[in-house]
């Protein structure tokens, strides 16, 4: 066994309390190159940490193992600590919803982005679910909240939360993506990390009653009804038109998200879930559904959320979030610590169905390999993909390309621009490129 473990650098990076200067780490890495083979042969290479450096590592091994810490030798915390609701570890405080400076000018009509760079699996923790408010958020007294259904129905009805929560419910996992997600990338590269390029998407399990159940209870006029209007109870009273096929299919009037009631920022106590459709249609604080026979040209479908085309027209009612994917690790704003093996991982989703396949390229799109899809693979939900990659230390461009159950292939940015120009703001679902530089740093680039 090597006498000095600082000669043995595994890929385990120093724990937060252990710092190495640039020089220390570089010398340690050099040492690794000459000693690693020998050390591995002697079975010592696995847990060795560069961070311990000379001071912390005795010849016998690492302090992290040899010196029993307080949490091993002391008494831990009791149950049901105040406030009786578990919080993430204090070591995880870097992963936060964040605003993109300069994107909006008023905090109550703004966006906060989900930190996709640090998340796992397909479910977004509720506290990290992205936010989009048009006129601020509220924490509404659920006992006073009402849902009204009116218009082309035999019986115009009012429901309390008590009524709604007695109804037959469904629980389904769906993604929600803001129509403007990745809007910054229509033109040139503008933002430094995946949180800001792609962080207006989340995926949760929603529980509620199918909208079709409510509409049938009210005796919807199936001949005349062509659209429904969903309306919120907040100051902006968001309204959005939803076509009747959607409304009678998989829309959910939901009160729960990820096993608990909705968070106030996400519409407590009631929001509409419109699977596959952009987030603006998922009206929060839902107070009313009107059944009608004409599209409504609401403010968020006639002034905002319209796609500016090169010929000067605007496309209206473009709700579908088409097939899209992005690599979340490694991604822009991250740095690789060494050459060698990486599990490249990311997310894929489609508003038209389920994910059939995700391919990953490490050479900017010349060659592609098919990634492993992790289960469950659900319609209109996030799908996690993983693929093995061994980095040789040379510049590399990582890309993911998703294909959905309709056979649609996620496009390149130049293909999108050829049809829609660069001004359309919404529905940017292009293949995202991350450049891995020789120094290990990953950055946002455009390659096509």
């Amino acid at each position, binding site marked *: 066994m090597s006498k000095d473990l600082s000669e043995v650098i595994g890929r385990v990076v120093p724990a937060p309390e252990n710092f190495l200067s640039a020089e220390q780490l570089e010398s340690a890495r050099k040492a690794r190159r000459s000693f690693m083979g020998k050390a591995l042969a002697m079975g010592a290479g696995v847990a060795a940490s560069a961070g311990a450096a000379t001071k912390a590592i005795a010849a016998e091994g690492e302090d992290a193992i040899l010196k029993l810490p307080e949490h091993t030798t002391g008494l831990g915390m009791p149950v049901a600590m105040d406030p009786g609701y578990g919080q993430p570890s204090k070591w995880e405080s870097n992963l936060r919803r964040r605003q993109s400076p300069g994107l909006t000018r008023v905090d109550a009509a703004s966006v906060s982005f989900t930190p996709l760079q640090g998340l796992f699996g397909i479910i977004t923790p509720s506290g990290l679910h992205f936010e989009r408010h048009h006129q601020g958020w509220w924490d509404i007294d659920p006992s006073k909240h009402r849902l009204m*259904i009116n218009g082309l129905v035999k*019986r115009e009805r009012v429901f309390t939360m008590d009524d709604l929560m007695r109804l037959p419910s469904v629980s389904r996992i769906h993604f929600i993506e803001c129509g403007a997600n990745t809007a910054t990338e229509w033109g040139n590269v503008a933002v430094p990390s995946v949180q800001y390029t792609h962080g207006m998407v989340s995926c949760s399990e929603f529980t509620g009653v199918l909208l079709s159940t409510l509409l049938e209870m009210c005796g919807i006029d199936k001949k005349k009804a062509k659209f429904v209007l969903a309306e919120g109870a907040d100051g902006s009273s968001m309204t959005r038109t939803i076509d009747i096929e959607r409304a009678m299919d998989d829309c959910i009037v939901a009160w729960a998200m990820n096993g608990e009631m909705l968070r106030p920022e996400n519409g407590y106590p009631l929001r509409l879930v419109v699977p596959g459709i952009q987030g603006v249609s998922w009206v929060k604080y839902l107070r009313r559904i009107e059944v009608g026979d004409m599209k409504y040209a609401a403010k968020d479908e006639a002034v905002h959320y319209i796609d500016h085309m090169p010929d*000067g027209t605007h496309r209206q*009612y473009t709700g579908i979030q088409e097939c899209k994917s992005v690599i979340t690790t490694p991604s822009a704003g991250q*740095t690789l610590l060494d050459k060698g093996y990486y599990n490249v991982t990311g997310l894929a989703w489609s508003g038209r169905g389920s994910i059939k396949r995700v391919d990953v390229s490490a050479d900017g799109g*010349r060659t592609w390999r098919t990634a492993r899809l992790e289960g469950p693979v659900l319609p209109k939900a996030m799908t996690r993909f993983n693929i093995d990659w061994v980095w040789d230390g040379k510049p590399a461009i990582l890309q993911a390309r998703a294909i959905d159950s309709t056979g649609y292939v996620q496009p390149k940015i130049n293909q999108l621009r050829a049809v829609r120009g660069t001004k359309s703001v919404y529905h940017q679902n292009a293949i995202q490129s991350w450049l891995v530089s020789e120094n290990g740093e990953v950055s946002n680039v455009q390659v096509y």
Partner: protein
Amino acid sequence: MKNMFKLSRQVAVAAAAVALTGAVHAQNQPWHDLGRAATPAEVKAWDIDVRPDFKGLPKGAGSVSMGETVWIAKCSSCHGDFGESNEVFTPIIGGTTKKDIETGRVAALVEGAPSKAPQKTTIMKVATLSTIWDYINRAMPWNNPKTLTPDEVFGVTAYLLSLAEIVPADFVLSDKNIAEVQKRMPNRNGMVFYEPLWKVNGKGDVKNVACMKDCEFDPRVKSFLPDFARDAHGNIQEQNRGIGPVRGVDTTKPPAKGLVGGAAAAAAPAAAPAAAKGPNVNNLLAANSCTACHGMKNKIVGPGFNEIAAKHKGKANLEAYLVGKIKNGGSGVYGAIPMPAQPQVKDADAQAMAQWIAAGAQ
């Protein structure tokens, strides 16, 4: 007894038949009668939407000049006197021409066309006048929505239309003539309904193929993150976990020179736990929409907080003075634009913010 039994059986069968017709739903959908009927007054109170054919528009009328009065009092502090302000929200008026009113297409929206507006305005985009009426009626003023009367909404709409030269300065907009005015909307022919992006089972407009090797390929990077944007979102190192296969890049520094394993990797950050903080003034300022008009260190509509702190430094009873200004508004101290009264701000919040400003707004 026999007859008796027969009779009761008949009754029972009849009763069952009645129950059956009355409660088909009770068998298939036993939840069918949950909820209750909405009253006409309730439907009227909530059913406020106005459609493009103006169904839902209440009766009423408002002149341009009445609308201007309402506008200056309740709208101009955010949108500018002429709806042109780009300071708090994007501008509403500007960028349309008389020709656009004739054609119903805003020429400046065509790619590469010259435009007098610095950016797209609402009036350049919106095709439906019902949308403007409905928008103002349901969501404005920003911090006090649904408080305008229908006549005021007609007036404010008329004022905006007059600024865009769609109606003359002496116009009175009403439910009677609004459909005629719709025919002059500058971008009324500018909207396209593209069904494939509306229907879930539609086919998209952009096609790619799933090539696997020797694919069409141009290795040149077409766009990099500009240097000034590297740190514009804060230090990305502090936005990544301190363990795992990667670290966040320290974006306060330029990219590390040399190969992997140099300074870039060595900069692996500590995952510093967030310290528990007291009441957060930043949150109060944001929650009460103060930051819509006041920057931390810059004027937006009103003065920056640092400017207020500097102006009043050392004054007696400063906190009480500032609480008064917050709650009651004021004008003339920093220019002509008035600060509206903010009676909705909680006393404790006003006190905390005043205290913070008095202490230097740091």
